[in-house]
């Protein structure tokens, strides 16, 4: 068990390294990093100072080292728009985005798993049709459109929920529903199809032949085997959940990392964008490691690697 956890963490660290390498290469090989990180009209001293900080006269591997060093020290440059360290701007807003994403993930799994199971059990029934078509529509509908439609109906027309912002629990409802829908759709379809496959497996039939009651067979063996790939895929969905969060934040004016990054890209404030991509990706990897480890603790039979 501990071996597995250690291995998993090591693997995660490797992934994080490669992520930083990818981002570093994109920023440093995609043109002049100084031009990228500072606006045209910045004073020459500032540009010179940045050149030295980034080590632009040094070989590439040394520059990467400086980059990593900066990351460890929490210094990834300053936003020229806000005149503040980019890392601080991102970290201030990361909890908000994380809250939104986590709530959406919880909501969508709570809905999708039971719904998927039901759809699989009662295959081709009304429930199945409802769940399946709901899932496919949820997958096809752009989430910003869903958000706008929800605002139109619940906030403008009915007036029962707030339009935007992130001040009270009420403010969370529409954004979380909007963000969770896409993931719920994917997970529902996944649970349904995986469970159907698993039920068809030989050993289940054998277990049934042995005389255990239908229910016991289903809930114990089939579900357990379904959950393994499902949890894996949920973990893999975290990056797209973050992508959805960025868009949802713009629809509902939520002051998270997503909205910050969109504003930064619009005004080409790349220090912020760089910091956001790095820090959020690292967070995603950590979350994935966390999910894997927790699941292994709950179900030690799992060693899927």
């Amino acid at each position, binding site marked *: 068990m501990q071996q597995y956890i250690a291995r998993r963490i090591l693997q995660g660290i490797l992934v994080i390294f490669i992520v930083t390498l*990818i981002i570093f290469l994109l920023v440093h090989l995609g043109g002049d990093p100084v031009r990228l990180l500072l606006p045209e009209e910045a004073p020459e001293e500032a540009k010179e100072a940045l050149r030295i900080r980034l080590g632009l006269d040094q070989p590439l591997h040394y520059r990467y080292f400086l980059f990593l060093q900066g990351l460890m020290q929490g210094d990834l440059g300053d936003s020229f728009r806000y005149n503040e360290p980019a890392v601080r701007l991102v970290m201030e807003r990361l909890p908000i985005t994380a809250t939104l994403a986590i709530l959406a993930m919880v909501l969508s799994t709570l809905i999708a798993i039971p719904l998927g199971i039901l759809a699989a059990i009662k295959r081709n029934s009304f429930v199945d049709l409802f769940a399946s078509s709901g899932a496919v529509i949820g997958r096809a509908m*752009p989430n910003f459109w869903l958000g706008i439609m929800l605002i139109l109906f619940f906030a403008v027309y009915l007036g029962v929920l707030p339009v935007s912002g992130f001040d009270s629990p009420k403010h969370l409802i529409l954004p979380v529903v909007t963000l969770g829908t896409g993931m719920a759709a994917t997970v529902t379809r996944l649970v349904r199809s995986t469970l159907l496959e698993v039920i068809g497996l030989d050993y289940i039939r054998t277990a049934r032949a042995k005389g255990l009651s239908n229910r016991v067979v289903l809930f114990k063996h089939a579900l357990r085997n379904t959950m393994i790939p499902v949890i894996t895929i949920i973990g893999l969905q975290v990056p797209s959940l973050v992508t959805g969060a960025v*868009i949802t934040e713009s629809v509902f004016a939520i002051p998270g990392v997503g909205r910050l*990054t969109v504003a930064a*890209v619009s005004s080409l404030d790349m220090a912020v*964008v760089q910091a956001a991509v790095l820090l959020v990706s690292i967070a995603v990897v950590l979350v994935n490691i966390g999910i894997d480890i927790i699941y292994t603790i709950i179900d030690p039979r799992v060693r899927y690697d």
Partner: protein
Amino acid sequence: MKKIIKSPVGMVGLILTSIVLLFAIFAPILSPHPPHQQNITQRLVPPAWHPDGSSDHLLGTDYMGRDVFSRIIYGSRTSITVGITAVILAGAIGLALGLLSGYKGGIWDSVIMRFVDSFMAIPSILLIMLLIGILRPGVVSIIIILGVTRWITYARVVRAEVLQVREMDYVTAIISLGQKPWKILLKHIFPNISASFMVVATLNVANVIIAESSLSFLGIGVPHHVITWGSMLAIGREYISVAWWIATFPGIAITLTVLGIIFLGDFLRDTFDPRLRG
């Protein structure tokens, strides 16, 4: 062909996708009005079935008096063009890397697969935004960016197929006989992977279309003068209380297009490779 007629899902997918393609290709002919033509005194006219609507404007007019239906038709051009081009680009990259990884194996495989894992951990829109900052916005750069960020599914599928085919006896035999590797790829591996490749490509078009409209919605997509459903939605949002149609119809257009493509993709998958299910 006969198969698709039997499948309701496939039919719906085919019909929807064909409609969108027709719109995109024949936009100038099908569109009742020039999409950029303003008519300032005819602003915010409701759809035709509304009492204040006019039969001249099926889906109403927008905030500058332009015909919404025409703009939706022209918007399909952006979605389809960006969708297909980006997917071709992504496919090329994914194919190359997948082949490399699957065929050569060994260290190439490990490195590329690790690379894939890390790439997948970065939320796509953040990576896209970083690239937009580096390459500066523009239609071509958006296509390139969308292509470059979506190669992974192809790579994986291709790699899996290649690994499988490689293990087959007759292929091992041919390799030991000394045939050139790329000939092997061409004659034996390609035909086998093309089916799953098509399935992945189809579904990827749907993803790219949503990604492009999301970027346009956020205002960081293709340039402003290009008509795209995402930006129609973004601007339409401002008028939603007096003109709900400006934002609603583009949203429906995106949903139906994506739906059609997903159905088509599902049908293709079920036909050619049920193993890919789930």
